[in-house]
């Protein structure tokens, strides 16, 4: 299958640089997949599980949150705010974060701002858990 070069770089450094068959991720507009020779393309990244299909067909999952994606002349640059490979995610910690956020959201007297923050935390934890495959 045709491949294209993918660079994933977050503030923590270069996470991936190499040939891939397919990249699937969630943009602010919904899920999308990039294949080789995609039209020049640019979008903002949402929060969700990203899947990279490597040259040899193996799939790697990651939690991908925020940032941007650009595809220019068969070079795909993904610049997320945070990117964590599924096998590097601390599942227990994500689980704990999820429970904490859920508990906080049950509190009805929660202020609007705190609620938004708790929701974001819950969402991040869910993304992490789904990327870790749990």
């Amino acid at each position: 299958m045709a491949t294209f070069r993918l660079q994933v770089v977050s503030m923590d450094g270069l996470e991936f640089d190499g040939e891939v068959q397919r990249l699937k991720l969630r943009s602010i507009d919904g899920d999308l997949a990039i294949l080789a020779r995609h039209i020049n393309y640019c979008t903002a990244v949402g929060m969700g599980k990203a899947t990279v299909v490597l040259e040899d067909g193996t799939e790697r999952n990651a939690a991908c949150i925020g940032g941007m994606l650009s595809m220019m002349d068969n070079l795909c640059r993904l610049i997320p705010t945070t990117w964590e490979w599924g096998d590097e995610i601390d599942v227990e910690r994500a689980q704990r974060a999820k429970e904490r956020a859920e508990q906080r959201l049950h509190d009805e007297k929660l202020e609007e701002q705190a609620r938004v923050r708790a929701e974001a935390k819950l969402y991040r934890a869910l993304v992490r858990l789904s990327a870790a495959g749990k």
Partner: protein
Amino acid sequence: MAAANMKAVKLRIKSVQNTMQITKAMQLVAASKLRKAKEKADQSKPYFEIMRATLRDIAVNNTEFQSPYTRQVKNDKWLYVVIAGDRGLAGGYNANLFKFMENETKGRDYMVLPIGKKAVEYFRHRDVELFTEDFAEVAKISVSDCFGIARMICDAYSAGRFGHVLLCYTQFVSMLTQTPMASSLLPLADFEEEVREEQALAGNDQPKAPVRDLILYEPDSETVFNAIVPEYLAGLLYTSINVSVASELAARRTAMEAATDNASEMIEKLSLFYNRARQASITQEITEIVAGAEGNS
């Protein structure tokens, strides 16, 4: 006379020794902090470079100008985000940056967002209009602060308080060399000029091909840019703060190393002088005793 002189030299040696102790300690502290800071700067370097390259490609090929972030605006006010240090004694680190700033801002109407205590002091002293002083301490700035700054810049930019945003920081070239740099942040159209200038410098002065590659934006360019730009600003800010902090520590280490060397050289010279004076006074005493004994016999 000799005795008084000796005492003064002794005191001088003592004081130089004390100074040397301080510079030596500062050198060691800077060196150990530098290792961590350099790691951090190296880590964020690819992010900075790939982010800029991507934005450049987009700016050069962009044909959509709905978003205020992309189009050239008729507002000649500039905002300079200046990243300096919190403390002095770092050789020319702060001075070089400010000198560079002065050249850069010549003849422009500008305001400044200083980051770092030295930058705040400098621009306040010169009565430059400050955008905000909330981010005085560069050492305390976190990722979320960067997002806060980025949002403030975006809001003020959209409100038309300034038409261009530039970032001044110190690039970490090597352990011994750090150079001040400026890079455009907003609008993205400024990138195009930068690219053209660079091409002209490289001797490649052919006008750019008028045909542009079309880019597909999803859902549409305005939404995409509104989502991307604050993140891009925050990311660039954070990474250039990391690089600047590493530069500051490297500059301080070099400066303190030179100071320590100078101090030890000075101590050597003073000790030589002291020993000579001591020897001279002993010789004089002996001469006096001998002369006295001869006079008696």
